[in-house]
């Protein structure tokens, strides 16, 4: 077909239901707010890795859906999460991105979290241990037991990641993501892992566009090096497998790194129990990616900042037991794919930013297609179809027509 006029451009594509969506799911402020409220405040998010708070009293601060969070390791070595909010007057308690409570702060004491505003103090279990001039001001009407921190669901799991859920009653993490992790569990849990790389990118795009890119490999046409060296029979046989709760796993295949110019085999440093040079990818709803390329693990997590603004945090991990030399090799392997001069990551960011440029709040709705059917192999777009079906349930909106409720559409489908 030649280029189209407006009516033709806006017409329904000749594809089945669920094989395309309306771009308003990426551009609408109301939908962004609903996603924070209905999805991110109820989903498990790996906010950091336990190796980033390796000693008692170490902490990190972060946020989910605008809620400020502090994660700290107690003297009993347990990692716990709390809202980073003082129960007194709502002040943010800790302002540093990371550090240790072992040494005292200018307004606090060693081994305590201290709110600098009025000097209230909390221990690593979130119990209030000091209220300044308590008796004088509150007599016996309010005491320390009444003003503990807000503790959050927190589990250290699937290779030492620290997962937090803002909903006290959400399903447990095992039932949420245990199935998709089965393929890598032995490799990630054989021995302690350690973060050797962290960076974040704030990209003018919707978080789902980023997650889409992690869920489909058709865009290997953009990755010049992948295209010219990677397309072979084993590559095209790779499966995209869908799991409950909107997760997908991209099945493994053996990468011939020695066929890549300037690369070497990763066999000697492959993760425990992983056959040499294998490559797995786990994509969790609503926007978390675990990517194990033989010797190096990457985890990226999204934080939506607006309909058209997304923070992506990237971590690279190796084995804690690495020798100095092995660690350097592992870092080299990580960076050669995902570093600033690597093969992939910067190209992925160009892709999603280009989409972000065409899909800003207020732009005319576009049709975004994900109707490729290739027997659920690598260039099939079943991963995205699976994701948006889940998304529709959480928001009760139809992805292809977000003004309409998902429930009504599925009732119609059932009736058909």
């Amino acid at each position, binding site marked *: 077909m030649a280029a189209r006029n407006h009516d033709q451009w806006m017409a329904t594509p000749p594809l089945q239901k669920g094989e395309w969506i309306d771009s308003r799911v990426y551009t609408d402020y109301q939908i962004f707010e609903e996603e924070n409220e209905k999805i991110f405040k109820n989903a498990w998010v790996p906010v950091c890795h336990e190796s980033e708070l390796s000693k008692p009293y170490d902490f990190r601060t972060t946020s989910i859906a605008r809620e400020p969070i502090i994660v700290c390791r107690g003297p009993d070595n347990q990692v716990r999460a709390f809202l980073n909010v003082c129960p007194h007057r709502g002040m943010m308690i800790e302002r540093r991105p990371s550090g240790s409570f072992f040494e*005292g702060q200018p307004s606090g*004491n060693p081994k305590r979290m201290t709110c600098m505003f009025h000097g209230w103090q909390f221990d690593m*279990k979130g119990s209030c*241990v*000091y209220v300044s001039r308590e008796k004088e001001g509150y007599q016996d009407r309010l005491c320390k037991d009444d003003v503990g921190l807000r*503790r959050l669901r927190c589990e250290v799991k699937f290779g030492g990641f620290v997962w937090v859920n803002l909903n006290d009653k959400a399903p447990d993490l095992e039932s949420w993501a245990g199935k998709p992790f089965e393929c890598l569990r032995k490799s990630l849990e054989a021995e302690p892992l350690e973060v050797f790389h962290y960076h974040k990118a704030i990209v003018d795009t919707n978080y789902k566009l980023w997650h889409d890119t992690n869920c489909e490999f058709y865009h290997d046409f953009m990755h010049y090096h992948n295209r010219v060296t990677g397309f072979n029979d084993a590559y095209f046989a790779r499966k995209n497998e869908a799991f409950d709760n909107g997760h997908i796993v991209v099945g493994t295949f053996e990468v011939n790194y020695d066929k890549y110019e300037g690369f070497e085999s990763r066999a000697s440093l492959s993760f425990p129990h992983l056959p040499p040079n294998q490559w797995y990818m786990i994509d969790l709803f609503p926007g978390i990616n675990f990517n194990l390329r033989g010797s190096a693990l990457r985890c990226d997590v999204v934080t939506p900042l607006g309909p058209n603004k997304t923070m992506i945090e990237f971590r690279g991990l190796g084995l804690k037991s690495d020798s100095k030399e092995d660690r350097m090799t592992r870092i080299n392997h990580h960076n050669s794919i995902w570093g600033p001069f690597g093969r992939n990551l910067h190209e992925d960011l160009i892709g999603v930013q280009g989409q972000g440029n065409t899909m800003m709040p207020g732009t005319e709705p576009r049709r975004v297609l994900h109707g490729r059917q290739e027997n659920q192999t690598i260039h099939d777009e079943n991963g995205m179809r699976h994701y948006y079906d889940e998304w529709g349930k959480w928001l009760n909106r139809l992805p292809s027509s977000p003004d309409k409720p998902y429930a009504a559409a599925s009732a119609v489908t059932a009736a058909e």
Partner: protein
Amino acid sequence: MAWKKVCGVGDVEVNSVKLFDVEGVNVLVTNYGSGFRAIPPICPHMEEPLDVSGIVANCVLTCSKHLWAWDLRTEGMLGETEKPLKFYETREEDGALFVNMVEELVYDFDSEDDLDDDFFG
């Protein structure tokens, strides 16, 4: 008796505190004008290092974090202070200050409560 030399009497200025290592034990010495006191290095309230936060004036040692204070002449507690300081016995001899180091003096602190970790169970 195990008298150990800590410092010279001129090493700690009037109205100040100074930290010394006495054979592996941290001892805080304060010169309050009319004498010396030797105490453990932290506040008995919340483990605050007193070489950083201790203020000496008018023969009173005050921890600047929560204003617990002790009279250094009588060793008594002042104001809202809830726990006494522990003191090493001292003596001055030939321009030096000695402490009687029988054992390291330490304070008991409340341990963290025993909330179990099945918090949301």
